[in-house]
């Protein structure tokens, strides 16, 4: 009885479940972070400016595009659509955030990272750079894992990249040569 209960999904190897968890953790975090910023794009632009990393004119574009990109990548990860591409983008975003936070820390600038909206200058004693970097390193690792092992249950990719039934070698080999898309 217990075997038959969830027979199909439980046959998947454990890394696929790790990928599902990684997808959801990174995806939900990105969607929440993006959604909190997208309603206040002026604040998002201001936050980017306070990092003092980019030329002034670029900060406007980055401040507007970043929350939208976060939501898009987050939704792709949650739904498991183009998982590998989305995971690479998510990991790259985290890498960029880690570099940004480390750089303001190294330059002795005291700001709130503005990761989930808000942002702005804070007292030096109120900065949380180590925690923020640790969090982003963790999220980077979830992205790296999902990019390495993109196959997972409950993913649109399973339908999108389903091997064609009439092609005998497609179901045999891991990646049939015709497949340009690496996510399968």
């Amino acid at each position, binding site marked *: 009885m217990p075997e038959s209960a969830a027979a199909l999904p439980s046959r998947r190897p454990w890394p696929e479940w790790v990928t599902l968890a990684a997808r959801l953790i990174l995806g939900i975090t990105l969607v929440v972070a993006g959604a909190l910023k*997208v309603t*206040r*794009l*002026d*604040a998002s*632009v*201001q*936050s980017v*400016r*306070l990092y*003092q990393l980019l030329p*002034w004119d670029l900060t406007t574009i980055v401040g*507007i*595009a970043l*929350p*939208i*990109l976060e*939501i*898009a990548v987050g939704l*792709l990860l949650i739904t498991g*659509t*183009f998982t590998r591409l989305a995971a690479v983008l998510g990991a790259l975003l985290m890498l960029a955030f880690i570099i940004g936070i480390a750089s303001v820390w190294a*330059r*002795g*600038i*005291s*700001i709130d990272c503005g990761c989930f*909206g*808000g*942002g*702005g*200058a804070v007292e030096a004693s109120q900065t949380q750079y180590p925690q923020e970097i640790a969090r982003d390193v963790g999220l980077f690792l979830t992205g790296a894992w999902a990019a390495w092992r993109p196959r997972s249950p409950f993913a*649109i990719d399973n339908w*999108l*990249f*389903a091997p*064609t*039934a*009439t*092609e005998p070698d497609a179901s045999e080999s891991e990646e049939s040569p*015709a497949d340009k*898309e690496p996510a399968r």
Partner: protein
Amino acid sequence: MTQNNRERLRKAQAAAAKQQRLTRIIGVGAAVLVLVVIGVFVGVLFQNQGKVAASSSITPPNATADGKSVVQNPGKAKAGAPVVELFFDYQCPVCKQFESGYGEAITSLAASGDIELHYRTMTFLDNNLNNDASVRAGVAAMCADTVGKYSDFHNAIYTNQPETEGAGYADSVLRDTIPAAVGITGDNLTTFQSCFDKQATKAFVTNSNDLGTQDMLSVNKQVSTPTVHVNGKDLPVNNIAQTGASGTVDTAALLALFQQYA
């Protein structure tokens, strides 16, 4: 013969299935791209939505040509007088304390022409406090400048600052209460309220915040208020506090401090 036909049919079916799969992948990929592009487009649109039409836009008469600040007692400053720039945000409680403690001494030096006093309106606290009260208060103050009441209006905004940071300013306070308190009446009141209702000085205020952010980032490496620059250099607010306790400032010592930093 039949073997060959079957083989050919099977191959054709396989090719069709493969083509269908490719179409599906490209279709979904294109849909995702289109959605992201639409998202960015809508974002930019919303970002520009709040901007006032150029035709109804008003620049305050006492603004500097570079659009950074409003000058107190224009033309009064003596030759070589230090240019004192005061960066403030109307929602900043410390700015209120600074204003009530040292504002009078500083404005008296401007009135005597010993310094050239520039008010630099910042609105970044709107972002931190998630409202738009700093911009609206700034817009009201700039509209007050069009009827020659900037300085009084500026002080009255701080008098009306809510106890809790982030509570913001009601439009009725900015539009009715403060104008009544500083004596904007008759035609002037009509002019002021029309300016405020159209948010005609908003472009000036948001631009002022941008320029102030740039200058503070390059001089102070951070954006915070109150900040004082003398001839473009930072004068720590704590040094001003050493010229006398709040409200009992030695104006001579204050002037000496400004000159020292000039």
